[in-house]
C-alpha cells in the first residue's frame, strides 16, 4: 500500500515535471505571426560595446523591417560566456547568432553546433575581402580535417594585437631617445635601455622603478617565437620546450629578472602586479593590447604620455607577438540561417558601427576597424587630426597584424589545441625559475612530461 502511494506520487510528479520541462524547450519563436523572422543573439561585451551593438542591431531591424520582426540580443560578461554557452548547448537551445573563438571552430563544427556560412555568403554575394585581418578571417575556416583553410564558419568581429608600449615621460626624464618602431631593439639593446631606468628613486635602498615588467602568461611568447622556437610541434601534438632555442629564450626571459634585475622580482610582483606598476609609472615598458588603448589614453587611468613600440628581437631578428580574434557564428539548428548570416555580416562590416567601435567618431577605441578601407583611411586621419585619442605609432598594430619583414603576429598556440591546460601547467611553477630556486633545464625536465600528458589527454578527448 505504501509502495502504491509512493508510485502514484512519483507518476504525478513525473507528469507535472514533464509539463514544466516541455514549457522550457518547446517554444520555437523563429518566426513571427506575420511570417517575418525573429533572431536571437548571445554575446559578451563591456558597456560601451554593448551600447554600440544595441544601436547597430536597432538599425539592422529598421533596414530589414520587411523580413525581420525582432532581434533579441542577450549580453553577458566574458567570464560568464562560455559557461552559459555550454549550458545552452547541453539544453539544445542555442541562439541564432553567438560568438566563437578560432580554438573552438573545429569542435563546434564536428559536434554539429555551427552552420557553414560559405554557401550563404556565396549565394548572397557577401564578400569578405574588405576585412582588415585576413589571417583572423582564415582562422574561422575549416575543411573537414583541420582549421585554417576551407569554408568559413564564422566572421571575425575583430582582430586584436598584443603590442608593446613605452612611457614617454620616463624617456624624456631620462633623456633617452624614444624607441624607433622601424628598428626594433635587439635583446641586448633592450636590456641596456632597461638598466638605465631601473633604480631606487627615493633612496630607501629598494628598487622602485624598473625597465619593464613581465607577466608570464602573456609575455613569454614574444621571446620564444622571436628566438625561432615554439611551445608545440607544427601539428600541435608534441610539447617542444626542450629545444635549445626554447631554453635560450626562457633563459633570456628570466635573466631580465634574475641576472639584469630590470623587472620587479617575483615577491614584488606579488605585492603589486606588473600591470599596476606600469599604470603607476614605475615601468618604462609594458604591453598594450588593442583593447587597452582607451584605458591608457584616459588620464585618470594612466596619467603619462606613451606610445607603441615593438618587442625586442631575439635570434630570428623578427619582433613577434600574439593576435586574438572573436567571431560571430550561426547556429546549425537555426531556422533562419540566411537572415542570421546577413546580420553578422552587418555587425562585422557596418561602417557606422565600426566607426563607433574603433573610436573614429571621437569616442573610446575598443578595437581596430574591421574594414580595410576604414583602417587605412578615416581611422588614420582621425588619429592625425586628433579626433581620436590614439598613440601615433599606430602602425605597430598593423605591422603585427599584417606582417612585415620585421614584424610578425601569430595566434597563441593554445588556439590550436582542444584546451589550454598544458599551458597552465607550464605556468604553475614558472615562478620557481624566475625566483632562482630552479634552473631552466631543471624546470623543463620536470614540467615537460606533465604538459605532454595533459596535451595527449586533450587530443584524446576530441577524437
Amino acid at each position: 500500500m505504501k509502495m502504491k502511494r509512493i508510485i502514484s506520487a512519483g507518476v504525478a510528479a513525473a507528469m507535472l515535471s514533464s509539463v514544466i520541462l516541455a514549457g522550457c524547450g518547446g517554444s520555437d519563436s523563429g518566426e513571427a505571426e506575420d511570417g517575418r523572422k525573429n533572431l536571437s543573439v548571445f554575446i559578451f561585451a563591456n558597456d560601451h560595446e554593448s551600447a554600440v551593438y544595441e544601436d547597430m542591431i536597432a538599425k539592422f531591424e529598421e533596414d530589414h523591417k520587411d523580413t525581420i520582426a525582432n532581434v533579441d540580443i542577450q549580453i553577458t560578461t566574458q567570464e560568464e560566456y562560455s559557461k552559459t554557452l555550454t549550458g545552452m548547448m547541453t539544453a539544445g537551445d542555442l541562439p541564432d547568432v553567438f560568438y566563437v573563438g578560432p580554438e573552438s571552430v573545429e569542435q563546434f563544427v564536428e559536434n554539429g553546433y555551427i552552420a557553414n556560412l560559405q554557401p550563404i555568403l556565396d549565394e548572397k554575394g557577401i564578400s569578405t575581402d574588405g576585412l582588415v585581418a585576413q589571417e583572423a578571417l582564415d582562422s574561422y575556416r575549416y575543411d573537414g580535417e583541420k582549421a585554417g583553410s576551407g569554408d568559413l564558419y564564422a566572421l571575425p568581429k575583430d582582430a586584436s594585437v598584443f603590442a608593446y608600449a613605452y612611457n614617454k615621460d620616463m624617456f624624456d626624464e631620462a633623456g633617452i631617445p624614444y624607441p624607433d618602431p622601424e628598428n626594433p631593439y635587439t635583446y641586448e639593446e633592450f636590456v641596456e635601455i632597461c638598466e638605465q631606468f631601473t633604480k631606487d628613486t627615493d633612496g630607501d635602498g629598494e628598487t622602485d622603478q624598473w625597465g619593464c615588467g613581465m607577466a608570464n602568461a602573456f609575455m613569454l611568447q614574444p621571446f620564444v617565437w622571436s628566438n625561432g622556437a615554439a611551445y608545440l610541434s607544427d601539428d600541435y601534438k608534441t610539447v617542444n620546450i626542450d629545444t635549445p632555442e626554447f631554453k635560450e629564450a626562457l633563459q633570456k626571459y628570466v635573466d631580465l629578472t634574475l641576472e639584469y634585475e630590470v623587472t620587479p622580482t617575483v615577491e614584488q610582483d606579488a605585492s603589486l602586479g606588473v600591470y599596476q606598476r606600469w599604470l603607476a609609472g614605475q615601468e618604462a615598458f609594458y604591453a598594450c593590447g588593442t583593447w587597452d588603448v582607451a584605458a591608457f589614453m584616459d588620464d585618470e587611468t594612466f596619467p603619462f604620455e606613451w606610445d607603441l613600440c615593438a618587442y625586442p628581437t631575439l635570434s630570428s631578428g623578427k619582433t613577434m607577438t600574439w593576435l586574438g580574434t572573436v567571431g560571430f557564428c550561426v547556429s546549425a539548428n537555426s531556422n533562419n540561417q540566411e537572415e542570421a548570416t546577413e546580420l553578422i555580416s552587418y555587425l562585422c562590416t557596418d561602417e557606422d558601427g565600426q566607426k563607433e567601435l574603433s573610436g573614429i567618431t571621437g569616442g573610446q577605441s575598443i578595437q581596430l576597424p574591421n574594414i580595410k578601407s576604414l583602417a587605412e583611411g578615416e581611422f588614420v586621419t582621425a588619429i592625425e587630426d586628433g579626433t581620436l585619442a590614439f598613440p601615433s605609432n599606430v602602425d605597430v598594430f598593423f605591422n603585427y597584424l599584417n606582417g612585415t619583414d620585421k614584424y610578425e603576429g601569430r595566434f597563441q598556440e593554445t588556439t590550436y589545441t582542444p584546451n589550454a591546460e598544458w599551458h597552465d601547467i607550464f605556468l604553475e611553477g614558472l615562478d620557481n625559475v624566475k625566483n632562482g630556486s630552479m634552473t631552466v633545464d631543471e624546470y623543463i625536465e620536470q614540467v615537460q612530461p606533465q604538459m605532454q600528458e595533459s596535451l595527449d589527454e586533450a587530443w584524446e578527448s576530441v577524437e
Partner: protein
Amino acid sequence: MSETKVKPVRKKMNRAEFKEHCWGLAFVSPPFIGFLIFMAFPIAFAFVASLTKWNGMNDMMANFVGAENYIKLLGDEKFWKVLLNTVIYMIGIPIGMILALVIAVGMNRKIRGIKVLRTLYYVPVVSSLVAVAILWMWVFNYDYGLLNSIIKALTGAHGPNWLGDEFWVKVSIIIFMVWKGLGGSIILYLSGLQSIPRDYYEAAKIDGASGFNLFRHITIPLVSPVTFYLLITGLIGGFQVFVEVLVMVPTGGLNYSAATVVFYLYDKAFGNNQMGYGSAMAFILAILIFIVTAINFKVQDKWVKTIE
C-alpha cells in the same frame, strides 16, 4: 480537483479519503518536484556524465567509457596533491573550535558592552565571503600588507610571501578560514554553555574542584554536542573549500600548492572542458564526505555527552 473522475485505487478508500489523499499529495508535490528537478536529476545526470568523456559539446552517450575516469583519477598525482591540500586546510577546524570555546567562555558572563563584542565577532560570518577574501588578500600582501607591516615593525625583518609561497599560502588560507568561521562557532558554544545547569558547577565547587577541573570535567563534556556539530559541519565544509582559493590565489598557487579538490574539479570541468572527469571527481568527493561523516556518527557515542 474536487470533481476528480479517477477511480479510487484501494477499495477501502472512500471518496472523501481519496480527496484528502489528493490534497495531501498536492501539498507535498512542490518540494518533491523541486527535489526531483533540482537535486535528483542533476545528481543522476552527473553520475552518468562521470562515466563518459563528455566535454560539454560532444554527444555524452557516444563517449561512454565506463569506470575509466574513476580509475584515472586514482592514479592522478594532482588529485592526490589537491586532496592533501584540502586535508591540510582542515587543521583550521580544531584551531577554530578551541579558540571559539575559549572566547565563548570569556564572553559567557556579564561584562559591559558584551552585546557589542558578540556582534563584532559575528560580523565576519554575515559578510560576503568574496569581499572579505579580497580584504584578506591585502592583509597578506607581501610589501604593503598589514601582517608583514606588523612583522617588520616588531622584528625588523621582512615577513613571508604569504600567498606566493608553497608553505605560507596554506597557513594564510587556514588563518582566513579560522577568522571567517570563528563568530559562528562562538555563538553555538555560547548557547551550549548557557544550557549547562548552574548547580553542576556549584556542586563541584562544594566538593573542592578547581576552575580548571570545572572546565575540564563539566564544561567540555557538556558542550560536546556542539563540538560534534561543529566538527561534522566543519569537515563537510572543509572538503568543499573553493571560493577562498579562487579569490585569493586564482591560479591555484605556485605549483598548485593552494588548490583544493573542488578547485581542481572546477578547473578540469569548466576550465578545460573535461566535464566527465570533473563529475567523477565530484562523486569521489561526495563518497569521501559520506564516509567521514558516517565514521563520525559511529564514534560519537564514545565522546558526545548530552545533558539528561
